[in-house]
């Protein structure tokens, strides 16, 4: 093949690739997705940061938000991003290391909530790992990196930012170069490297120093660090506050610790101005100790599978159905819910509505199949807790949180909430003869995973609501109502206190 034909072919392929990337049609060049750990410091920016991450990272992204400050308001984010996991701030603990311990994917991104990403950001940062297997950590250009990767830019709008990144990608597609150190607000690395060198050294106080130290430790273990010339992320900078001087003084301790750790005494450090001394040859220095990644008692919020059903025929338009779905999802404050809708397609018109990757809509034909699916949903979707929700019942915004915590922290296998009006039957079965089968309102029930809760039938009296006849072996607890009512005789002996 002639040279000119070869270059035409390459150009054409590059054009096709660019088109696919621009249109978001390319999958990530990894099998198991990527875990993105977001450091949450700026409440005013965090929502948009997470929003852009979800929008521009493809389906196989796991988000873990870590509150970096005691005052950081996690609740609104947990409500707005139900698929993400959030780790609250705990004094004396560096939550980022805890979050990293939960990363289950081959690649991990550590990012500040001041970073705004654009389409294709993560794919472009993952390609260097494919290009060269010795690459273990990659950073994009940003205002927070050092040297030529440090780009101090302002864009008026997200559109202007995207146009710049697209232009930049077009010009420098595929380009990257090795770096001696990285210290910016966005870093992607392999989990394998993380497991070898551990987490970030929080005794260095200042984030850039912690990242630089981690990268130097990575280099000591033979990892290559690279900077992507093609990709830029927009890092917002907070305005200086009145207490900035006090913070600056605290940072000095971190600077001294960094200099001492790497034998750089008396060097000038001003990361904001791009001045960060590093050892000339890290390989000759004794390896610095790793930082353990430990899961603490305060684990990320466990996954709850919310099973939604409608006991009456749905007479909704697709728009109404979508609206009703959003309303139900939007109102719950619990931070980690997988939504599963179970419908009888003979009875309900089945308007299509969009669901997230982890959610599902199961359509079965006929009443028996529908009830059977409801009984066995826990076997289909693994999670720590299963909560049943009726589409026609009213729930307050903390309902799932409350009942999930009761299952999680109590000793009952199955918990019934009698707090709300939706529980039509009075708390009823207490004190009745144990010979009569216990029937519980399904829309008020949650249970542990790994069990089949019992038999689900229609309520005989009304014919509308569903009721559960629990397995006799299950321990049943109640929440809501008077405290004494929450101690129940265990049907197979003993009692459960909630």
């Amino acid at each position, binding site marked *: 093949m002639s040279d000119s034909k070869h270059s035409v072919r390459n150009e054409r392929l590059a054009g096709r690739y660019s088109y696919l990337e621009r249109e978001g049609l390319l999958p990530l060049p990894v099998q198991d997705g990527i875990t993105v750990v977001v450091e949450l410091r700026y409440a005013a920016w965090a929502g*948009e940061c997470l929003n852009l991450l979800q929008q521009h990272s493809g389906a196989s992204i796991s988000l873990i938000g870590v509150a970096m400050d005691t005052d950081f308001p996690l609740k609104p984010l947990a409500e707005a991003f139900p698929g993400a996991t959030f780790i609250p701030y705990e004094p004396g603990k560096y939550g980022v290391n805890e979050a990293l311990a939960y990363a289950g994917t081959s690649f991990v991104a550590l990012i500040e909530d001041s970073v705004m990403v654009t389409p294709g950001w993560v794919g472009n940062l993952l390609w260097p790992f494919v290009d060269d297997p010795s690459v273990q950590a990659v950073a994009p250009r940003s205002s927070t990196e050092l040297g030529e990767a440090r780009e101090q830019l*302002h864009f008026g709008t997200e559109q202007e930012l995207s146009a710049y990144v697209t232009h930049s990608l077009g010009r420098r597609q595929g380009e990257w170069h090795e770096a001696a150190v990285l210290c910016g607000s966005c870093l992607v690395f392999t989990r394998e490297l993380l497991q070898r060198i551990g987490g970030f050294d929080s005794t260095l106080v200042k984030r850039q120093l912690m990242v630089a130290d981690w990268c130097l430790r990575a280099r000591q273990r033979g990892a290559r660090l690279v900077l992507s010339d093609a990709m830029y992320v927009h890092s*917002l900078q*907070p*305005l*200086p*506050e009145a207490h900035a001087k006090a913070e600056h003084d605290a940072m000095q301790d971190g600077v001294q610790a960094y200099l001492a750790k790497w034998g750089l005494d008396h060097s000038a450090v001003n990361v904001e101005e791009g001045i960060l001394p590093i050892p000339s040859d890290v390989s000759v220095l004794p390896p610095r100790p790793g930082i353990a990644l430990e899961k603490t008692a305060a684990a990320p919020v466990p996954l709850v599978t919310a099973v939604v059903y409608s006991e009456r025929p749905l007479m909704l338009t697709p728009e109404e159905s979508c609206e009703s779905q959003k309303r139900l999802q939007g109102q719950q404050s619990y931070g980690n819910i997988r939504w599963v809708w179970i419908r009888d397609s003979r009875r309900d018109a089945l308007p299509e509505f969009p669901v997230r990757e982890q959610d599902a809509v199961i359509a079965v034909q006929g009443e028996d199949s529908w009830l059977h699916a409801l009984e066995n949903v826990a076997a289909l979707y693994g999670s720590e807790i299963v909560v049943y929700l009726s589409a026609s019942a009213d729930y307050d915004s903390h309902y799932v949180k409350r009942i999930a915590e009761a299952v999680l922290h109590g000793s009952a296998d199955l918990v019934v909430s009698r707090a709300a009006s939706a529980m039509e039957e009075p708390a009823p079965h207490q004190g009745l003869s144990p010979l009569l089968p216990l029937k519980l309102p399904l829309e008020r029930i949650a249970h542990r995973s790994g069990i089949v809760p019992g038999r689900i039938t229609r309520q005989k009296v009304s014919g509308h609501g569903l009721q559960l006849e629990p397995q006799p072996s299950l321990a049943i607890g109640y929440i809501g109502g008077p405290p004494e009512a929450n101690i129940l005789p265990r049907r197979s002996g003993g009692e459960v206190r909630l």
Partner: protein
Amino acid sequence: MNYLILSHVPWEDYPYKRLLDLLPERAEVCFAGGMTSDQQAGSGVRPVSLAELKTLDGKGYTILVSSPYWLQDVLALKPGYIVALLEPCPEGEDNTMWDKYSALLAARADLVGTASERLYLEQNLYRPKVVYLGGDHPLSCGLIRRGDRLFFLTDYEAIWTRALTELWQPASPGAGGWLFTQHRLRADFYVSMCGKLPAQPTVHYLAATYLYLLGDEAAGRYLARSFELMLLHDYTDCLHSHYRFFSAIEAKKGNLELAVAQYEITAFTEEERKTAVRMRQWLDNGQFELLQAEIYRVNEDIAEAVRILEDLSCPEAQPLLLQNYITSFQWDKALQLLRESGPSGSEAGNIPLPDGAVLPISATPPASAVLLAGTEIPVYGGIQLPVIEGTLHLLHGRRHAAIRSFLRAAGAGGEARTLFAEMADLEEAVGRLKGEDR
């Protein structure tokens, strides 16, 4: 929050369009003047005619006003909040009149913004809530979402949105911190410029000014370098402009004896020497707050002087406060102060005030006032009391009362023609403003 825009130019030339996109809690935005349907669709702004303007319930609006000649309408509307966007005098306008009414507008505003750094510094010396609508910071410092559009904010845009929000949330955590932030950003900029332009006296002077506003002791070092550079460049007449500034810096540090000595070196005129003698007396008598306020005043830092004097109850404080109010065009406050300090029950010769109260002109003028030669009319800082009062009448739409006040002032000094000419010029400027494409 609803916003009403009172501009000095038609919509197509309105220079703050992007700031309108960034308005916090933006509900309805109205523009006084004509707009095409495309302009309305593109901006989400609704035009209002002059007739409709009169019917608006001002209380529900924050007014963004960028011409001093809207001041009468602003006062008539009694808006929730007034934001004055000050500009240097445009070509074709009378400079003196534009500056005077701009100063009066700024004095009535809840927040002042300006893209002119000269005006920004001037206003900082007059009052506390001033935003500089410009900057040299290269990064994005915030964001705001409006519908499906995400805007990134420059440093000053982030400060602007914060300052506006604090108008209706004055007790929010860190309230007022944006003032510090902007002074810090400007100080950092000029300090870095000093490194790049080490022989530039103006850059060092500006660095010293912002550091002084921050209360940073490094201000003295930059001022000293600026003073040296001025002398090196043979600008020998900088004792008043540069050396005197040391006295304000020392006063802020609490070194009042040194501050007085520094002021004395710069006191040349008879009035300045009298002031120096008075300062020395206050120093000897231990009247330190009075002294500090006076040092700030002679350095044109009226905001600091007012801040101190408003908390003082001694008899000497009141005339000084009055003088500072008048210098900084806070004329309503000046008249209010006079009214509160005048002898009660004096009926004869009272001057009716804009809000229906009366000003007792027979009250003994304060120490800082002089009597106009051959008259009983007190003059404060070169401004006659009836002129102040007449101007306020004019701004509140009481033309006849204004004329009576001006006649009183003119009767003494024979300046009727000047005052009425200014009145006519103002009316003409207002007419021109409202006639243009509106």
